[in-house]
């Protein structure tokens, strides 16, 4: 609160209040930003408690009052600052609230008040541009004078507000003084005289001089006796002479307030409601809510992006295709969301690693036990395969080479298993489009809670419990998704799901390598060589014997021969595809592998035939490569009505009738 005139304003207030020997003087300054009157400066000229005076030398009354005014100001600032900052040690000479008199309390509390124009005594004086003289301030209603309660305890009886400069000058005293026109003129003349030496403000002085004219018009209605101008002038001169000569006398406190019979009613000043206090609180609420709104904005943006990704997937999913040619377009469309999701998945593994450390170590230990048991049974051979740049599986080849690099770098099996496990945990669950959408806002919400400062201990533990619960829920959802993606998951526990997923990913990679090699051989147009045989893992010795017998005993018109790793005799002109059918049945589980020339509706025919022979298909993996149809079917064999199961020979015979063969 810097006054425009600075020190000169305080000196004017000091001189004015001392010349009239009143208790205090204040200057209410108009705040240009808010448009309300706030405390600008003041001077206290009342009683002072001397219980804790630490001054070594006696000072004059004027210096004591000046120091008192400054100390009261400092006390108010320290008390208001003490609310936000921890109470710091104050100097010895500083005041404490116990050392104040009642009138000093009134002066101190005035600093915390502010008046809109038209509200309160200073506000109304400013709005009307007239002086307001209030007699009996300690007895009026609080609607008339908002500081009536303080005035009552401090015994302030008379308050005068005079609009001057850019605000209102207020004087107060403990004596009961009736309205005095000469007092008003004296104060106005005093301030105008101080402004006369300033030449760049002629308009302001003209404005001030207009006040006596307007106020003089109201004089006849208020005055009791007509003052003779000739008699008034010598009185003013005598007063000025007396001020110079005589010393200032201390004011006596009037213990018993006089009766209010002569009070002047009719002051229509509106009561000052606690609006400033209420206005401050909503602004604080707005400030508190702003950062939360900013935080909440970012997850909305994230969810919007994820919605667009999901919409793209929905568009690609909605396309109904009849042939295999359009499925290639779908693959092209599906590449885009995969590219978009890659940076998203890169961020989540870092967060998941921090959250899943404990669970991760347990899972790794479980899988390593399985790996050790499987390691001697099926040693995996790592062969170097070069991939052509024009391949359709460019992205997969980069991952495959990345996978091959790790065994060379880390010779131990633990490294290999750990890399595969990380790859599966962070990549396979993100095939589902909803996952990134859900985890982002949850993480943001958790961070928002954890950042809350000053939260009690119970809230911290509650937030932690909620975060852990959310993490477990997310993990369980991902495991369910993983179990639904892998076709041959047998058990429900997490270790089995992860182990089966590892096997499935390995099979997919192996199939990709075979298809790449086959495609390259056909492209090079070399002489056809022996193709690698698809190993049937679940073939038992008994079923292999039955295959040999069925080959020998089969006699039909077409003399169709079953090819097992042997290239069929083909014409030199036509390059025909090989045809092979392999069936293996173990108890009630069946595995069928078909390789033949492609035909429209072939898969439907095969499945329909299988239903007739009481074989229920569970999973199908099929592919089409240059007109060659390759499929692997997993099925359950059910019993007929007579309780007899179908045999391998019957299934093979039925399949050979459906699949197309080379025309002889």
């Amino acid at each position: 609160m810097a006054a425009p005139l600075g020190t000169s304003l305080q000196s004017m207030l000091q001189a004015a209040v001392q010349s009239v020997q009143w208790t205090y003087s204040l200057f209410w300054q108009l705040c240009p930003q808010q448009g309300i009157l706030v405390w600008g400066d003041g001077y206290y000229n009342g009683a002072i408690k001397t219980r804790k005076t630490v001054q070594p030398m006696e000072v004059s009354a004027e210096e004591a009052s000046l120091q008192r005014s400054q100390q009261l100001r400092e006390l108010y600032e320290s008390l208001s600052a003490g609310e936000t900052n921890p109470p710091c040690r104050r100097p010895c000479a500083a005041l404490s609230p116990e050392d104040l008199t009642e009138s000093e309390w009134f002066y101190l509390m005035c600093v915390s008040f502010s008046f809109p124009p038209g509200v309160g005594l200073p506000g109304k004086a400013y709005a009307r541009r007239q002086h307001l003289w209030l007699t009996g301030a300690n007895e009026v209603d609080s609607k008339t004078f908002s500081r009536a309660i303080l005035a009552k305890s401090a015994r302030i009886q008379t308050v005068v507000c005079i609009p001057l400069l850019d605000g209102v000058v207020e004087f107060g005293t403990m004596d009961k003084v009736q309205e005095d026109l000469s007092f008003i003129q004296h104060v106005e003349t005093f301030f105008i005289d101080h402004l006369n030496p300033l030449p760049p403000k002629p308009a302001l002085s003209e404005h001030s001089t207009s006040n006596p004219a307007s106020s003089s018009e109201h004089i006849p209605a208020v005055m009791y006796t007509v003052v003779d101008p000739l008699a008034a002038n010598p009185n003013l001169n005598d007063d000025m002479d007396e001020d110079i000569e005589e010393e200032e006398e201390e004011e006596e406190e009037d213990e018993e307030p006089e009766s209010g019979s002569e009070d002047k009613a009719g002051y229509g000043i509106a009561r000052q409601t606690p609006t400033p206090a209420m206005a401050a609180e909503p602004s604080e609420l707005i400030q508190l809510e702003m950062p939360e709104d900013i935080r909440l904005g970012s997850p909305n943006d994230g969810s919007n992006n994820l919605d667009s990704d999901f919409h793209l997937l929905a568009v690609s999913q909605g396309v109904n295709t009849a042939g295999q040619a359009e499925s290639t377009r779908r693959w092209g469309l599906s590449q885009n969301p995969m590219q978009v999701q890659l940076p998203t998945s890169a961020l989540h593994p870092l967060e998941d690693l921090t959250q899943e450390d404990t669970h991760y170590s347990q899972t790794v230990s479980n899988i390593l036990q399985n790996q050790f048991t499987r390691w001697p049974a099926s040693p995996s051979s790592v062969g170097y395969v070069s991939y052509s740049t024009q391949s359709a599986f460019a992205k997969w080849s980069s991952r495959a080479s990345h996978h091959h690099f790790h065994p060379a770098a880390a010779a131990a099996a633990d490294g290999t298993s750990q890399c595969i496990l990380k790859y599966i945990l962070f990549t396979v669950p993100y095939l589902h489009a909803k996952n990134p959408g859900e985890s982002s806002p949850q993480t943001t919400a958790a961070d928002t809670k954890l950042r809350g400062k000053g939260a009690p201990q119970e809230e911290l533990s509650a937030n932690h419990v909620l975060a852990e619960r959310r993490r477990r829920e997310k993990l369980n959802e991902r495991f369910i998704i993983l179990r639904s993606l892998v076709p041959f998951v047998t058990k429900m526990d997490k270790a089995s799901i992860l182990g089966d997923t590892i096997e499935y990913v390995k099979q997919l990679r192996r199939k990709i390598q075979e298809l790449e090699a086959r495609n390259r051989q056909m492209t090079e147009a070399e002489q056809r060589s022996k193709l690698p045989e698809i190993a049937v893992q679940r073939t038992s010795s008994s079923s292999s014997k039955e295959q040999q017998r069925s080959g020998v005993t089969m006699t039909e018109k077409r003399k169709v021969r079953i090819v097992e790793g042997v290239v069929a005799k083909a014409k030199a002109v036509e390059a025909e595809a090989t045809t092979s059918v392999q069936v293996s049945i173990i108890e009630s589980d069946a595995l069928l592998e078909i390789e033949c020339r492609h035909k429209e509706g072939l898969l439907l025919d095969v499945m329909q035939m299988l239903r007739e022979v009481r074989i229920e298909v569970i999973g199908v993996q099929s592919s089409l490569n240059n007109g060659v149809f390759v499929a692997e079917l997993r099925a359950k064999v059910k019993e007929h009505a007579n309780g007899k199961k179908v045999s391998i020979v019957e299934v093979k015979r039925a399949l050979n009738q459906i699949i197309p063969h080379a025309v002889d």
Partner: protein
Amino acid sequence: MEGPSGVRKGAWTKCEDDLLRACVQLYGEGKWHLVPQRAGLNRCRKSRRLRWLNYLKPNIKRGDLSEDEVDMMIRMHKLLGNRWSLIAGRLPRRTSNDVKNYWNTYMRRKVYSHKKDNNVEKQAEAKSTVKHHEVIKPVPRTLSKTSPWLQGKFFNSSKVGASGEGATSISGSGNWWETLLDDKEDNEG
């Protein structure tokens, strides 16, 4: 009722109030240790003084605080904190006990409820972020024999050298991720 040391406890009766009031009128305030000799009261000194200051003093104002007194109390509490005697000294005819009780009953609850609203809002936001995830499980597809189209198809497929009319693809709109796997395995690009 009287305690073991002969000092009376519990609520003050009208007779005791009259005795204390007469004693103060006769001898004035202060010197509370002499009240038993002067008035014949069997109350402890602290109780006598508090009874007079908070209840029996003639000029004490009763009833709830007015709006202006509440506003002034808020301002002074902002500056002074919980120093009730200083705050009550500035409110005419109010005791420090009244000011303390009023603040602890009404004002502190307002401040506390203000903080509580923020916590409720945070919990509401947490609940809204937790979304229920739909789990999609693979369902085996069964083709019914009663479909006439299938029977016709079977009749056609039994012929030798017949070109297939099959326009239906089993990989239609079942599970969306299965199509992703099929697309990856497709060689034609």
